[in-house]
């Protein structure tokens, strides 16, 4: 028996770390989340961060303005590297978005309770990241106001239709569906919490705004039943959707005939890379936010640890992808494939490849160590580096494959211009602006879900003597 007890204690320590800090009840959970948007005091740190974001956003506006005046010639893209920063940044942002859907949908299906306190802001991250991503292909068309009939099946006077055999049009369908469903899922998830905000707001304006947004939610048993069914369905639909989105993004490259792009491993390897970079971004955001707003009891070390583990697992799949690319480039015995890999490793951009390997295959192995996963400062720095690593991956795939054309006379180097960098850092500004607005005005943790983690939220039905139905 003594041994049994010992085993129980040991296993509890290993498996059942709490996803909720000690001493919580319904009111403490609600208050610690709801007071952030309801408070009239704006923390100085928030103002500071928001201004940085706003600065970036202004830079973006300038970059877009100049782009629309002068055309895409202001970017560094040119033959043979016709796709560069625009698609690198697009894939990078879309990939980041994937972690939010993974947390809110896939982990919901797997009944992972640790998702609850991070799902709301991870989903917000998804929406903002997709918004940043969508800017790039749209602006790369040069005249985005004409893009409606290039992208969508719109019956125009020239009788032209999109080319449905092209992965680029698949991308339009995938990304716009993804953006729509993510927004819908997020708003549905917000409704009960908006009702809480309505009921707790003191200022008349806030009470009215939240009141309209809450749609008159009452939290009746019938409401909740339909709500839970709808949420499960949305999760069930979002799961294959999120896998399809990065799969379709990978098709943009893989269905071409270009060595370095055309590889059947691309779909699963892109999806894994997306989740890896997305979790890196969630950590980049979660670690400072939980410290700044004192939310350590809701976003616990268990959450941080689990996210680090997911990053490790997906990074290993990404690493597997790199190994497969290299091996099959050789095994294919196709001279173009072999040259592509040789050039990627030893050509003029070789340093980007080895930096990428150092980060995504080398550095990420640190996450095997518990001491690293539990060191939030180190993990924060690592998460930034992993984001850079995944950006580099797309750079390597896109630029090194393109800059050596089939025709050696077309070989050339690609150098981004200042406008490329301004666009890229500008979208980071847009992302930060939206995110700071979100944490100031919207409850950033799903209060109603976290309440269900409390032991007193568990009920059992006892059909007493008067029951018996």
């Amino acid at each position, binding site marked *: 028996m003594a041994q049994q007890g010992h085993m129980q204690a040991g296993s509890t320590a*290993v498996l059942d770390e709490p996803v909720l800090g000690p001493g919580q009840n319904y009111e403490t959970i609600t208050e610690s989340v709801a007071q952030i948007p309801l408070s009239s005091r704006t923390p100085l740190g928030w103002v500071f961060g928001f201004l940085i974001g706003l600065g970036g956003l202004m830079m973006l506006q300038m970059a877009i303005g100049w782009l629309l005046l002068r055309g895409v010639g202001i970017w560094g893209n040119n033959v043979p590297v016709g796709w560069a920063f625009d698609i690198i940044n697009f894939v990078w942002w879309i990939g980041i978005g994937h972690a939010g859907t993974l947390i809110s949908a896939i982990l919901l299906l797997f009944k992972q309770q640790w998702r609850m306190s991070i799902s709301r802001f991870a989903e917000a991250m998804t929406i903002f990241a997709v918004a940043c991503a969508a800017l790039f292909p749209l602006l790369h068309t040069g005249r985005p106001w004409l893009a409606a009939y290039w992208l969508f099946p719109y019956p125009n006077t020239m009788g032209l239709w999109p080319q449905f055999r092209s992965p680029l049009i698949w991308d339009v369908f995938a990304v716009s569906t993804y953006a729509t469903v993510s927004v819908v899922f997020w708003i549905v998830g917000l409704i009960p919490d908006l009702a809480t905000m309505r009921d707790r707001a003191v200022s008349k304006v806030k009470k009215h705004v939240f009141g309209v947004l809450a749609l008159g939610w009452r939290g009746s048993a019938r409401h909740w039943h339909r709500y839970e069914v709808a949420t499960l369905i949305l999760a069930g639909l979002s799961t294959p959707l999120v896998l399809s989105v990065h799969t379709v993004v990978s098709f943009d490259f893989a269905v071409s005939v270009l060595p370095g792009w*055309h590889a059947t491993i691309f779909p*699963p390897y892109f999806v894994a890379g997306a989740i890896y970079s997305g979790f890196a971004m969630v950590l980049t955001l979660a670690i400072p936010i939980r410290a700044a707003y004192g939310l350590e009891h809701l976003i616990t070390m268990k959450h941080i640890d689990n996210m680090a583990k997911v990053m490790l697992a997906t990074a290993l799949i990404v690493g597997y992808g790199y190994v497969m690319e290299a091996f099959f480039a050789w095994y294919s015995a196709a001279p173009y494939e072999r040259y592509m890999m040789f050039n990627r490793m030893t050509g003029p951009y070789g340093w980007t490849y080895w930096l990428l390997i150092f980060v995504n295959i080398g550095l990420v192995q640190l996450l095997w160590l518990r001491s690293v996963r539990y060191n939030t400062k180190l993990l924060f720095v690592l998460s930034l580096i992993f984001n850079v690593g995944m950006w580099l991956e797309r750079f390597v795939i896109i630029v090194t494959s393109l800059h050596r054309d089939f025709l050696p006379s077309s070989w050339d180097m690609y150098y981004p211009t200042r406008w490329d960098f301004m666009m890229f850092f500008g979208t980071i500004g847009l992302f930060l602006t939206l995110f700071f607005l979100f944490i100031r005005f919207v409850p950033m943790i799903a209060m109603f879900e976290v309440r269900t983690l409390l032991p007193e939220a568990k009920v059992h039905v006892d059909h007493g003597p008067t029951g018996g139905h």
Partner: protein
Amino acid sequence: MTTETYQAPDSVSGLQTKGIGTAVLGLLLTGAGFAMAGLDRFYEAYLVAYVFWVGVSLGSLALLMVHHLSGGAWGVVIRRPLEAATRTLPLMAVLFLPIVAGMGHLYHWTHADAVAADPIMQAKEAYLNAPFFLARQVFYFACWIVMATLLNRWSAEQDRTGDPALAVKMARLSGGGLLVFGLTVTFAAVDWTMSVNPHWFSTIWGMLYMVGQGLSALAFVIAVLVMLSTVPPLDRVVNASHLHDLGKLLFAFLMLWAYLSFSQFIIIYSANLAEEIPHYLVRSAGGWQWVGWSLVLLHFALPYGLLLARDTKRNFNRLRVIAMWVVVIRLLDYYWHVAPEFHTTGLSVTLVDVALPIALGGIFVAVFAAQLKGRPLLPLQDPGLAKALTHHTH
């Protein structure tokens, strides 16, 4: 906590007997088929049958390691069937020998004159040559058998002592083990089936095999678990919630298999490159296209559509039938990978193609059942056992 020992019921011995009977029947049929079609057809069929059954063992090893890492009630109830399946790996290593004997027919790249006349095979010679091939096989089986042996030994030790350090040890091995598994299975898949056509390549092939093996193993142990759940001692343990979880996993694996297969197809189809497209050109004519359509309908649409309903996943009998169907239909996928390469002009099936999977299956099941009854049917000291026994979901 529990005094129950969960001894295997008589039905496991019955399964063993059935396995032996099936093996004898299969071998007799194989003999007849061999007499009809000759040695070459035997080797071709043997390769498919072997890859099919070794997939159950290897998939079980992977699922076992995933369970040691993730925990969860779904894994506790199937841990012993999974472990028993991994203990067939030494047998599978021995059963590989006929493939070694048939290398000359199965693998074109073993012929020096053919290589001398083919620049592509020459370029791959550093990898595709008989000594290195054999060395790799020894290495793969050594890795798999060592991992399976350690996990099984520690598991037995855990039953006896309940030492909590063992669960941690098994989780540690599984973390690195899955990495080793992924790489070895990938290269094994290249060796066994991709190199049947030494010109063709596809980078997703390894992943397709990992998922296919996971699917085979999961379907196999679900069928075994439902069989065990009809009689004591597991009839009081296994409930609809366990099956629901396993059914969802089966559903996910089916989806993943379809996803990877379709991805490979659409990428090769769209690019239409001379290096790769022959793979699908051969398979879209001469009757082979019906095998492909059967895969879409019978390997994906049918079980997927049935598993969509919540009730199917919670119904013991229906889930067992679907699981057994998936085990069987997996054969068609491997057949589709291998057979068209030997019969590029058109579909060609002989008796050995059916007889050998039956024969190897009988042997596999008999050894599996013998292994299964040697240990308690539940891991007695698994840290998640108590939770698994009271597992209930809606």
